[in-house]
């Protein structure tokens, strides 16, 4: 019985919300944010002083100020690279979401289909995408198409495995309820299995959205082309050859920020979609 637990969490939420309201802003700030901020400043200071103290040249370990300068100096290059990588990974992600969910629904609609194909889906999932990337390039040519395909491939399997798990996780009693009302296979799919799978699908999408950026960057390593069309991955390979270490740091940080933003956007979307009912998206109410 999940009900008493839910009552508990509801109560706890209400309590913490009440406690939060009573506390003045200053103490909330102190408890929640002060620690991480101090740690961050400490980290930056150490990072700034250690290369100075050890006399490390900027091409081995650049200081934060070096990274900042490199970012400013090559901002046009970097911003263009970011823009391209965003574009590629968004398309790769959308493809893996749409095709992943579509294929899962199709597989789940037939036990025979699922049983015969799902094992191969698992095997395919274990193949490192980096290993097949060159094949993709041979098939789709260097550049945008291949990068999107690689980004799609890497984000596709988490969506499939999570969606399938969700579609098969339907509560037995709810399933029987649909049997009692003589629901057709597709009524069951649309009105029961897909809504019930939503939290799982959202988990899959959260995993796949960060992977799609990894995919895009890996894709750019192997299939990136210059001429103002190279993304972050391409910028990284070029900077590495030129030993522009500071700029490499800028690219790495940019990729991290991109991943985090992507994740936050999908999480927000998931919260909006599941907010009305699912426990994991449940926050204090009213």
């Amino acid at each position, binding site marked *: 019985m999940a009900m008493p637990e839910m009552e508990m969490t509801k109560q706890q939420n209400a309590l913490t919300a009440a406690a939060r309201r009573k506390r003045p802003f200053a103490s909330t700030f102190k408890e929640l944010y002060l620690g991480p901020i101090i740690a961050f400043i400490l980290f930056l200071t150490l990072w700034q002083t250690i290369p100075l103290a050890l006399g490390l040249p900027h091409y081995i370990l650049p200081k934060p100020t070096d990274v900042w300068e490199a970012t400013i100096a090559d901002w046009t290059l970097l911003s263009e690279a970011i823009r391209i990588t965003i574009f590629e990974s968004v398309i790769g992600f959308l493809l893996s979401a749409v095709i992943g969910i579509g294929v899962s629904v199709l597989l789940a609609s037939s036990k025979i289909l699922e049983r015969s194909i799902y094992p191969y889906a698992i095997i395919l999932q274990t193949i490192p995408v980096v290993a097949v990337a060159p094949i993709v390039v041979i098939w789709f040519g260097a550049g945008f198409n291949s990068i999107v395909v690689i980004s799609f491939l890497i984000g596709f399997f988490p969506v499939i495995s999570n969606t399938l798990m969700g579609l098969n996780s339907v509560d037995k009693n709810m399933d029987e309820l649909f049997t*009692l009302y003589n629901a057709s296979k597709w009524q069951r799919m649309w009105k029961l299995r897909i809504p019930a799978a939503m939290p799982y699908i959202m988990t899959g999408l959260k995993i796949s959205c960060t992977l799609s950026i990894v995919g895009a960057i890996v894709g750019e390593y192997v299939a990136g082309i210059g001429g103002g069309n190279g993304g972050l991955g391409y910028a990284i390979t070029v900077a590495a050859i030129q030993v522009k270490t500071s700029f490499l740091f800028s690219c790495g940080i940019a990729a991290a920020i991109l991943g985090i933003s992507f994740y936050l956007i999908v999480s927000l979307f998931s919260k909006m979609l599941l907010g009305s009912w699912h426990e994991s998206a449940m926050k204090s109410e009213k």
Partner: protein
Amino acid sequence: MTIEQKQAVYFQHVSKVYNTGTVALHHFDFPVKEGEFVSFLGPSGCGKSTALRMVAGLGSPTSGEVSVFGRPPEELIKYTNDIAFVFQDANLLPWRSVLDNVLLPLELRGGSKKEKRETAKRVLEMVGLKDHLSSYPRQLSGGMRMRVSIARALAAKPKLLLMDEPFAALDEITRQTLQMELLDIWKREKMTVLFVTHNVYEAVFLSSKIAVMSARPGRLSSVIDVNLPYPRELSMRTDPAFSKYVEIASASLESHESRKETV
């Protein structure tokens, strides 16, 4: 009443053996007449839920036959709205509002949209939830969830209402209120109710007839006709006649248990 009543449910020599070898039900013979309120009363493992589920076509007997209004239950489920089932937990879809949960059976059956909404609102009013149409299940208490579940069962206008320990998880006060309301609805809608419980007081308070069952193997041990007048009030619980029936039912439960221990 001496008028010949039609049979709503008929268990004919029904046995159920699960794959594990457990005999859930052994040679179960029992008729339920139309308009009756019958409780299956017994300890856990006596096959009372198994019997109820067979009436809904959820699982078929290993041998024997269950018929509902003279037809096999699977057929009724396929072509009619005659059977409704209320589960032990409210079993609501958490992503649907109260109104949409009640609309579900109507949606699955098809029909005009406006009419469906009217029906759903009517049954929700019947269970006292017309002010919570747009609430979600998680915002409701256990008792209110069960009300929604009952409203959903009533929405398709069933002739036979099957209830599997619907009030077992509720607190005593909520349970009593819902029992009263259930009796009201039963009288008003002129349904047949089959009610599974392990609570002797509940069985006596609600039923016109109690089928006492015993476990290992599950079978019918006695049938008690409860000749207490309807409508039944809460005050009836202190009535000597009520106590008498509780005593009879308890004795019937116990005699079987002790008999088994001496074997």
